[in-house]
């Protein structure tokens, strides 16, 4: 075995990353590279798509594959066109909570509904990190951010459950403190036929942590571990007991008719062969 085996999947000329120290985004990149490696996927068969945000910079430019760094909130819509054009490639979206579930929530919903064969890794750091720490639709109730100086009064979106209800084939949530489960789920998402979402609860010590008494990455990881509840256990808990907890596990794993296959079925049905 050689040293630093994951580096071959990266655009090394741009390392080290510009992410802050301790940012969970780097961990997600690392685990994603491991998933690709373990599955033996040739990066030439991967297309990476992301939106705008710190988390969107995980694949762009670090992961060495065809990479489309798009506009804020829209990567899944871009990826839809890509998957239709390249049905045999792995099309992967890695982006942030604000990007994918905030401004981009509708594309997430409808891609899940359509059940298009895209794997989405949603890095949920509870905040709009890149723009300087404004409240996001994922920010915990009561948390301090630059735009909630008096505490957040909105409820955070339960992304995984909502996407499962919308029709995804595979949905799982883990934190960056569960690297092995996360690795397993990313592998599942990559190989699943249909829409797959892996929601990664990830630390942004700089923009979220520091304003909420979690000053460093280790602080945040400890907090994740302390607050995580496995899905099975959570199902037996009341909404009150679950307030502020992070439910982790696989929310759904099922087989459903996939969009691009159906699209190609239509073509097979009516395509005119001139000969």
């Amino acid at each position: 075995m050689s040293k630093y085996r994951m580096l071959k999947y990266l655009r090394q000329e741009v390392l080290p990353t510009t992410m802050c120290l301790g940012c969970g985004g780097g961990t997600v990149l690392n685990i994603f590279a491991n998933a690709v490696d373990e599955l033996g996927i040739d990066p030439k068969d991967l297309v990476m798509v992301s939106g705008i945000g710190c988390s969107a910079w995980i694949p762009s430019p670090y992961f060495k594959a065809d990479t489309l760094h798009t506009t804020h909130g829209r990567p899944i819509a871009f990826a839809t066109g890509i998957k239709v054009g390249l049905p045999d490639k792995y099309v992967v979206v890695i982006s942030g909570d604000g990007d994918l579930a905030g401004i981009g929530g509708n594309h997430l919903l409808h891609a899940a509904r359509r059940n298009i064969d895209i794997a989405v890794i949603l890095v949920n750091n509870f905040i709009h990190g890149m723009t300087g720490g404004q409240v996001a639709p994922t920010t915990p109730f009561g948390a301090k951010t630059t735009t909630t100086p008096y505490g957040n009064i909105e409820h955070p979106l339960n992304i995984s459950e909502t996407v499962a209800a919308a029709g995804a084939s595979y949905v799982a949530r883990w934190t960056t403190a569960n690297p092995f489960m996360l690795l397993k789920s990313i592998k599942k998402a990559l190989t699943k036929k249909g829409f797959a979402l892996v929601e990664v609860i990830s630390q942004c010590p700089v923009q979220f942590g520091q304003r909420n008494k979690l000053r460093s990455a280790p602080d945040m990881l400890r907090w994740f571990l302390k607050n995580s509840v496995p899905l099975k256990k959570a199902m037996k808990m009341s909404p009150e007991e679950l307030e502020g907890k992070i439910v982790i596990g696989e929310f759904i794993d099922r087989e459903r008719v996939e969009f691009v296959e159906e699209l190609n079925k239509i073509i097979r049905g009516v395509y005119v062969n001139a000969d």
Partner: protein
Amino acid sequence: MQIRIAGFGGQGVILAGLILGEAAAIEGLNVIQTQDYSAQSRGGASVADVVISDEPIYDVVVTKADVLVALSQKAYEENKYTLKESGLLIVDTDLVKPDKPHTGAPFTSKAEEVGLKVNYNMIVLGYLVGYANVVKAESVEKAILRRVPRGTEEANLRAFKAGLKLV
């Protein structure tokens, strides 16, 4: 007087510039403070410009720096040409190896040493103010009290003073 402080995201360059500017404002001088950074996260470049004058100021960014404070090698390389011939170059000697006459101190290790790692920028500011005499130390102290997050005033003041002492 055109002053540029250049480093990378996370060093607190912009807050240092802001406090310097506020101090000049407190002294009744005309002052414009601008900033330039590549993205909010820590890795990228970060520059704060402070232009101080008794005259009206028309050019809002540093065109020819009287003082350049360089806090990383990259920041130094990218900004050294902005410095006037006769300008003053201050560097963090822990991180920058300049090819020009300069002054400076090991700000990074100093900050670690005195347990004020997060107040690094105030150490730098202290050194700058102590060395270059652009504004009065008292004005800076007032500005610090106005601008740093509540509860951190004391640590910031201590760091500023530690910087002053490094001169």
